[in-house]
């Protein structure tokens, strides 16, 4: 298939590590966004959002270090020993991933400030979320043309995705609370706006990468994107069912509405994991059709 790089064990390891990095970044960014949007949520829900954001930020740093090792091993051609080869690591550090690592590292440290209650903690951690989102504008396909438009699109896409992904665990907790329906209902209202933004900027970015229908159906990038869009469509279906059926059922105290909603949110998590794997595949081993 056109535009597909060689795939070996290292490439697969790189894809899985990148997807894990995406997940960590989205949960870390999503924590402060959730706290800012739902400051009056129950204490246990807010505590969970804070805890997860910090854990995800720290895991994100570990994954970043792992990705440096994987990349050094790949370019060294030496196998596992290349992962700790100083010269190869210095080449990775000098590459766009090094620049991204500085922004992502600074962002992750600022996310830890989410543990400070009050405005300072929120503002610092929101800044951290912005830095992490911006770090993705310094690497890979975002470096194409038109550079600034791609950068704005990718940062917006990531923040909108983080608002959703970072809210999943707190919402899962809320669905078990007696009076959680109000929070879930409010999330549904805000998300209907942010998800629309997420989709519009995602489609715009994809169009700038593809440029034609033949690019969509004739290339590895196009087919991987189609897989991603299929899973995203399924996720949107789940989200619509939650908003239109399960949350109103929870509000009406219907039998097992909370349990069904929690199951549905867990399925959303599985769909998100698949989307992140498809995205990591897209950004690791395929060439955007406009570059072919």
């Amino acid at each position, binding site marked *: 298939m056109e535009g597909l790089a060689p795939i070996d064990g290292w490439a697969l390891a790189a894809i899985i590590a990148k997807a894990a990095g995406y997940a960590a970044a989205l949960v870390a960014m999503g924590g402060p966004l959730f706290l800012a949007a739902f400051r009056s949520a129950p204490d246990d829900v807010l505590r969970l959002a804070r805890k997860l954001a910090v854990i995800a930020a720290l895991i994100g740093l570990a994954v970043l270090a792992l990705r440096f090792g994987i990349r050094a091993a790949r370019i060294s051609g030496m196998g596992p020993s290349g992962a700790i080869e100083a010269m190869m690591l210095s080449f990775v550090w000098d590459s766009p991933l090094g620049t991204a690592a500085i922004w992502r590292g600074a962002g992750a440290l600022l996310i830890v400030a989410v543990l400070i209650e009050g405005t300072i903690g929120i503002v610092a951690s929101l800044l951290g979320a912005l830095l992490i989102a911006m770090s993705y504008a310094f690497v890979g396909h975002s470096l194409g043309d038109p550079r600034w438009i791609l950068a704005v699109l990718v940062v917006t896409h990531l923040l909108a995705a983080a608002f959703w992904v970072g809210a999943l665990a707190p919402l899962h907790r809320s669905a078990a609370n007696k009076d959680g329906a109000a929070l879930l209902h409010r999330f549904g209202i805000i998300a209907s706006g942010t998800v629309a933004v997420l989709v519009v900027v995602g489609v715009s970015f994809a169009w700038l990468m593809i440029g034609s229908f033949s690019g969509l159906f004739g290339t590895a990038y196009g087919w991987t994107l189609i897989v991603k869009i299929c899973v995203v469509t399924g996720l949107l279906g789940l989200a619509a069912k939650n908003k239109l059926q399960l949350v109103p059922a929870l509000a009406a105290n219907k039998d097992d509405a909370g349990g069904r909603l929690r199951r549905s949110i867990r399925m959303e998590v599985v769909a998100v994991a698949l989307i992140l794997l498809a995205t990591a*595949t897209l950004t690791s081993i395929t060439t955007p059709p406009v570059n072919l």
Partner: protein
Amino acid sequence: MKQIILALVATLAIAPAALAHSKAETTTPANESTVEKVEVIELRFDDPMRVTAITLTGPDGDVEIMRETGLDPVTEFRAMPSAIMPAGVYSVDWRGLSADGHPMQGTFSFTVAD
């Protein structure tokens, strides 16, 4: 869900055909060509590439090559075989880091005939 996983696995399993993040590079000797002697091994890229590893393998195993190009990113990479290459099939395997930070790799082969 199973179909989605199958589709993902299928996408990953399809045999690689082209290089990601760079238009197909041209080489000297050309891929699958037959030559009488090899004075230089060249790789040409559209965008600067930092070639981090390169090996030349022939009928008698690895052949030592001297890099003329250093480790800086280049659009034209050159290396010389350090000895006369006997007849046989040779392959060049290289790794590199592209300008946008993607790890790259490629391979090409050629035949040296008497």
